[in-house]
């Protein structure tokens, strides 16, 4: 296992060292004292495990493909944005736009996520142990979004084909978001995902998978239609 102590070093130096370790074949790296610096562990493209002992700033683990990034504290805006593949686990909370535009992989937030969680996500799996802020799933395209706690306003607004599951209350559904009946496969999927990704202490506080509500796109915004004027008026 390799160790990087951020100390007073710049993001550029820390990321360069991280990439050097990975290039040398190191598969397990601990980053100490990250100090909520922005842009840590960006664009890591190999399947190494990187553990940040502390909190990260904006865009941590952005644009990655393949690694496992763990953050023992919280993460700022744009966590794992545009990730292709890999796993990102935050043991605290995450700021706005977590998992935005991800194309694959898994993002797990043990605590709460702020606004615009999973906005424009294009695939992958997002799991939030706590609550999420407003406009989660905004214009999300594919993949699955699971929020174990409560969801904020305008949930799942203007979505394409992402499927969402919410364990708690939904403040209100966004434009064209509709509730759907979960299938047996859906329930099994949520159950397995939570068992695989959330620690029992968090999982235990949340309702069982069969009580999660499923939210999908009503598909009324997929194509222009003047008969749906009221809906379009809100969306355009």
């Amino acid at each position, binding site marked *: 296992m390799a160790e990087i102590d951020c100390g007073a070093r710049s993001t550029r130096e820390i990321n360069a060292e991280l990439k050097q370790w990975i290039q040398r074949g190191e598969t397990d790296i601990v980053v100490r004292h990250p100090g909520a610096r922005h842009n840590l562990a960006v664009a890591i493209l190999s399947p190494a495990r990187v553990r940040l002992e502390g909190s990260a700033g904006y865009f941590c683990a952005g644009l990655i493909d393949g690694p496992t990034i763990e953050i023992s504290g919280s993460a700022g805006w*744009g966590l794992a944005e545009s990730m292709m593949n890999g796993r990102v686990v935050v043991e605290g909370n995450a700021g706005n736009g977590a998992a935005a535009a991800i194309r694959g992989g898994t993002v797990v937030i043990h605590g709460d996520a702020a606004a615009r969680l999973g906005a424009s996500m294009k695939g992958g799996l997002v799991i939030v142990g706590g609550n999420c802020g407003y406009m989660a799933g905004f214009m999300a395209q594919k993949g699955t979004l699971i929020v174990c706690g409560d969801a904020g306003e305008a949930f799942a607004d203007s979505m394409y*084909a992402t499927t969402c599951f919410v364990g708690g209350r939904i403040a209100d559904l966004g434009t064209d978001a509709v509730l759907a009946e979960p299938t047996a496969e859906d329930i099994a999927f949520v159950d397995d995902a939570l068992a695989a990704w959330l620690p029992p202490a968090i999982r235990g506080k949340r309702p069982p998978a069969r009580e999660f509500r499923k939210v999908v796109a009503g598909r009324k915004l997929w*194509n222009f239609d003047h008969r749906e004027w009221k809906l379009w008026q809100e969306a355009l």
Partner: protein
Amino acid sequence: MSVLQASGVFQPGVIDDIQTKAASGLYRIRGYGTLRERRWATFDDLTFLPCSLTRIPLEGYREKCSTKTVLGTRFAGKPVELDIPVMITGMSWGALSYNAKVALAKGAAAVGSSNTTGDGGMLLAERENSRTLIYEVLPSRYGINIHHMRMADAIELTIGQGAKPGTGGLLLGSKVSDTIARQRDLPIGVDQRSPARHPDFLGPDDMIIKVEELREATDWQVPIFIKMGASRVFDDVKLAAKAKADVIVVDGMEGGTGASPAILQEHTGIPTLAAVCEARAALEDCGLYGEVQLVIAGGIRDGVDAAKAIALGADAVYIGTAALIGLNCNRPIHVEDYHQLGTEPYHCHHCHTGRCPVGITTQDPELMRRLDIEEGAARVSNLLRAMTLEIQMLARACGKSDVHHLEPEDMAALSMEASAICGIPLAGTRRVFGR
């Protein structure tokens, strides 16, 4: 004999507009760019002042006049080096056909210029056929792929476009074919409206961090461009410079589009002439003129417009629509297909329909075949060559051995508006109006 009198208010275009909306219940959407008669000051309101006795010209057909263009000298390890100052702008694969994308890449590469991806990600064939490829990062993030980003020679973080500043992209269902849907992770056939804001940052302060992320992702090697539609250019350019952009792209209100609400094309943003002047003033105001490079886009038709933009402060220009016209857009061939769209050659602005008669803005394999890649590439490179010769001709006549030495003092204004906007004396006077 009776005299027909038409309303000056409800002209035929207005009547058509009202009746179309009365039928559809929706604002009008179309491609191409503004159709308004340009009553505002444009590059045509400026004229060059070649040498006579006070200055000595270069031999037009003999003496060297450099067109080399370097972008991204501020922070990037490897600035973009181009042989000419005319670049092909970002037009998405989706709005454009595969053949059009590859023809543009090949055409630009043949003359040492660049091309830019667009709102749908990179096409591998585009990379393979480009010499210099600029990778666009847009609010939609369609097709975003770190591996593609790392293959690029520059990154363009797009905040907006001149044809529709402040709004997102639009691709009507007829163009969301199965290939394009797969590329963009969308259901086939949806009327795709993409977001206006980036999903992971909002204001200029967050953008500073975003730019740093893009540098980290590309090892601080390639230049970062920031592209914006021209609205509050003076302030926006300063904010982009503060965010540590290497290059700022300003796209004026004449800027082209594959599909946008018509009213945005006609009634939002400021004209390209005004935009370049404000952008230069902003960079001068923060002491970064020359250090941050400026690329101007929006209605650039020829080497004359390009030379004037350069003289006013641009380091290079982007062309979109002109390049498509080079590829045969609006050419009087396949005329019956223009008629099917309800239009005529020279009047077409129907890119949004996906039924482009000349195979440029379509995903229909039959129509696309009408655009031969090799022929198209040759036409694009010829156009870029001719535009470059035009710029050089004007520069030599003004006594410059480098096109980048053109300056506002090489021009006179032909209207009071242009004089006031550009700070250039009105021809026949020594006065700058408005000062």
